[in-house]
């Protein structure tokens, strides 16, 4: 069997969150080169701060400044740093108990080599030159007996934005791959369920009604019926066509499931359920393994299909 198609899939989003009183105080402190923890009901100082007491679940409000120097409580060695981590050269991940705190903070230690690293080592924060109110305002820690840097003024921080960038290889299923490869040649290849006989296009790995893999490839024509539609009047980010325009469900002749596509070539208010449409393909030299080879559907001029022909496909 030919190998299924796959392609890189980049997922990225910048999460923006409000901080609440406890974390706002902590992040504001970081911007000012200051580390602020919170005192628990048992008198222990939590750094990083917790919003609620881990024992009594009471909200905690007594903020306590601690030092930006401390002691390594445990560590591991990151020989090959990954994207987004605090350092791009080998470093130690460490739990660091800052002077004045009773719990430990996770951060990186720029120790040079694993041989320089040990539990119990004294470390101090290396502050970023540009600070925004984030845990990354501490670039990393360094092994040192020296006192921490003095704090500086800085504005209050109430929000945090965390960029997330993840990289995947997205795989199409074998039947989806056959469908996409068919599109390169201008063919529409569906799959028939061996149990119920329904034809799916685009095909699915298993029949959603019977839960069995589809087995028979079925070539379908590039014309069909509008089963339902909507008129898009609202502009949105990334929109390629000026509203109003029609997004419709098109049921290809011989298929049992409609797919969404554009219906152009007539006024939006002329589109109706049962309207017969045909595919308008892009120029052949632009074809690839994508449904975008079909630019849109347009009215074919045939008489409307009767409701009975698509009533089971709505």
């Amino acid at each position, binding site marked *: 069997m030919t*190998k*299924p198609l796959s392609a890189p*899939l980049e997922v990225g989003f910048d*999460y923006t*969150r409000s*901080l609440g009183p406890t*974390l706002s105080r*902590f*992040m504001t402190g970081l911007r000012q080169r200051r580390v602020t923890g919170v005192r628990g009901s048992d008198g222990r100082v*939590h750094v*990083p701060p*917790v919003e609620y007491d*881990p024992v009594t679940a009471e909200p905690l409000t007594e903020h306590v400044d601690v030092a930006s120097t401390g002691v390594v409580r*445990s*560590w*591991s*060695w*990151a*020989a090959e740093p*990954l*994207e*987004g*981590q*605090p350092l791009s050269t080998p470093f130690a*991940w*460490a*739990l*660091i*108990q800052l002077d004045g705190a009773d*719990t*430990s903070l*996770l*951060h*990186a230690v720029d120790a040079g080599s*694993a041989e320089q690293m040990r*539990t119990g080592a004294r470390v101090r924060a290396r502050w970023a030159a540009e600070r925004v109110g*984030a*845990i*990354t305002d501490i670039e990393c820690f360094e092994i040192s007996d020296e006192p921490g840097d003095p704090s500086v003024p800085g504005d209050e921080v109430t929000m945090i934005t*965390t960029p*997330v960038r*993840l*990289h*995947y*290889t*997205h*795989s*199409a*299923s*074998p039947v*989806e791959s056959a469908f996409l490869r068919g599109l390169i040649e201008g063919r529409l290849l569906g799959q028939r369920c061996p149990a119920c006989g329904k034809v799916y296009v685009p095909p*699915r*790995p*298993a*029949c*959603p*009604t*019977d*839960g*069995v893999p589809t087995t028979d490839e079925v070539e379908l024509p590039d014309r069909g019926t509008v089963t339902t539609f909507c008129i898009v009047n609202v502009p949105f980010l990334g929109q390629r066509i000026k509203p109003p325009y029609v997004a419709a469900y098109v049921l290809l002749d011989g298929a049992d499931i409609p797919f969404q596509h554009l219906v152009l070539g007539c006024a939006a208010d002329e589109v109706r359920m049962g309207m017969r449409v045909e595919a308008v393909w892009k120029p052949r030299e632009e074809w690839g393994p994508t449904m975008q080879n079909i630019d849109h559907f347009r009215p074919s001029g045939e008489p409307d299909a009767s409701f009975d022909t698509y009533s089971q496909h709505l």
Partner: protein
Amino acid sequence: MPNSAPEIAIVGFAQTPCVRSTTGTTNGVEMLVPIFHEVLGGLGLSKTDIGFWCSGSSDYLAGRAFSFVSAVDAIGAFPPIVESHVEMDAAWALYEAYVKLLTGEAETALVYGFGKSSAGQLRRVLAMQLDPYLVTPLWPDSIGLAGIQARMGIESGLWSERAMAEVAARSRADAMSNPLAQFSGAVDVESLLAEPYLADPLRRHDCAPITDGAATIVLAAGDRARELCSRPAWITGFEHRVDSPSLGGRDLTTSASAVAAGKAAGADRIDVAELHAPFTHQELLLRQALGLGDEVKVNPSGGALCGNPMFAAGLARIGEAARRVLSGEAERVLGHATSGPLLQQNLVCVMEGRD
């Protein structure tokens, strides 16, 4: 509604081979169809006999939204089914199904978990389960964090690099009898210890592999379980607990939540335990936390160290433990699952056979 809560048992279990990567989609359909067929066929059931369906998976692992909805294609959800999902290891979906059966609203349930870890970079994807304010922005990787925990135990004298290597060697030897394992074979501890560090103090053998796979379990209540199976694995205790997400705020050399879950579930007189320990030191930690003595056979399947399909491996541990009862090999077994970083959440399911 019954007057008293019904007794509930695991009556069937199936899983895919554990492999480094599949060519399938991230919605798991290709992995799930064969194991549904296997587990239902083995019980003489069809999909319409199942009263409740519940799954565990993660969109972050799949890199796409609502991947678990596409997975429902593998069921063939017509006529409409009663279905639910947890964004956790499917062991927690099993718990939800167990509660559903306890209410009497269903007599049978099929639970499944799937994960295609090979689609992304697992060590980074797992940073998404950390504290999003204070920890995720540093992108700590799962192995780096586990190394911190391992060193704490080593330096406290609770375990050693040698004891960790012994866990790896025993797991791989045991996996030789598990045809679905990703790794197996005879390895000696000295040669494992001669390997370089992956994330000092962890070596490659201390870390579970990256695995694509899926698993499924069928639960049944009372007489329905007795009809379906000659020796059901009756659930006598099923509990889960969670620890603080603050990594530096809890004692990482033990697991308060595992201790509590084990105690509540009645983790005593166990013959066989399957522990969801993605790192060698975590098996040692869990043995201690659950009070499992030397007489308890631990991870005869090879455990997560020989195949760790994310979001299915915990369910598979419970299935592997249940299998020892179903086959008559064991009387009383324990399946454990974990979720979150450094054993933050722990679930214990105790099962027994009745002759």
